[in-house]
């Protein structure tokens, strides 16, 4: 179980290879990558600033991953979330899950993302051609997290 908060980009191939770690019991790998869009709420986005709360972020992510492990029959899990200045097309977040069978990997991956969206202390500030604005939380994210 690994969580990382970093400014640097990540290589999903290398990360998944490391997560598998040659474990012959792994039969399924599910992953999710969130990326920066160039449009949000009908506005052109020229960049994104990702802020977090150092000291809380890693424990919050570790708690989410531990909960995923207790709820689903998974082998291992990885969460990487970037912070700092990002531009359209950049990778923001990676969640990768290994398991014996696909059902648990799919479910755990979705659970971790839904929990992260409502419980992990990250905030996005969008840069527009004519200024900046903080992204508002979406009610649909709360609803998604309540499913679990």
């Amino acid at each position, binding site marked *: 179980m690994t969580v990382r908060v970093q400014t640097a980009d990540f290589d999903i191939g290398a990360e998944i290879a490391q997560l598998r770690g040659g474990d012959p019991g792994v039969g399924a790998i599910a992953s999710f990558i969130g990326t920066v869009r160039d449009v949000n709420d009908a506005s052109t986005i020229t960049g994104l600033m990702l*802020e*977090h709360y150092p*000291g809380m972020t890693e424990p919050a992510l570790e708690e989410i991953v531990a909960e995923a492990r207790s709820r689903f029959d998974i082998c291992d899990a990885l969460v990487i979330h970037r912070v700092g200045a990002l531009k359209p097309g950049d990778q923001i*977040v990676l969640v990768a899950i290994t398991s014996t069978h696909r059902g648990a990997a799919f479910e755990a991956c979705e659970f971790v993302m839904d929990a*992260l969206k409502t419980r*992990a202390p990250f*905030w*996005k500030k969008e840069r527009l051609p004519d200024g900046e604005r*903080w992204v508002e*939380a979406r009610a649909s994210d709360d609803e998604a997290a309540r499913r679990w």
Partner: protein
Amino acid sequence: MARMPDTSLSTRVSVRVVYLARLRDVFGSSGETLALDDSNAPSVDAIVRALRERGGAWAHELAPDRAVRFAVNHRLAQRTQAVADGDEVAIFPPVTGG
């Protein structure tokens, strides 16, 4: 005659309050140390009420109908959570990562 407890000697509880993201911007502050009276079991809500009394952006952003989230010592917390001397209390908007 038995003496009543001397309530005038109530101690003060000092907490570090941290403002994050949009709330840091509108408050123009990343945080401050607040002294609370511990005679009535200080909580997150007591801090919020004290800040609201400043008026302006404080009253507006921390109004009861606004979506605000809290953490005490780096863990998500409800308004009703008690705070103790030396605690770090973070006040922030709903999160938007991922």
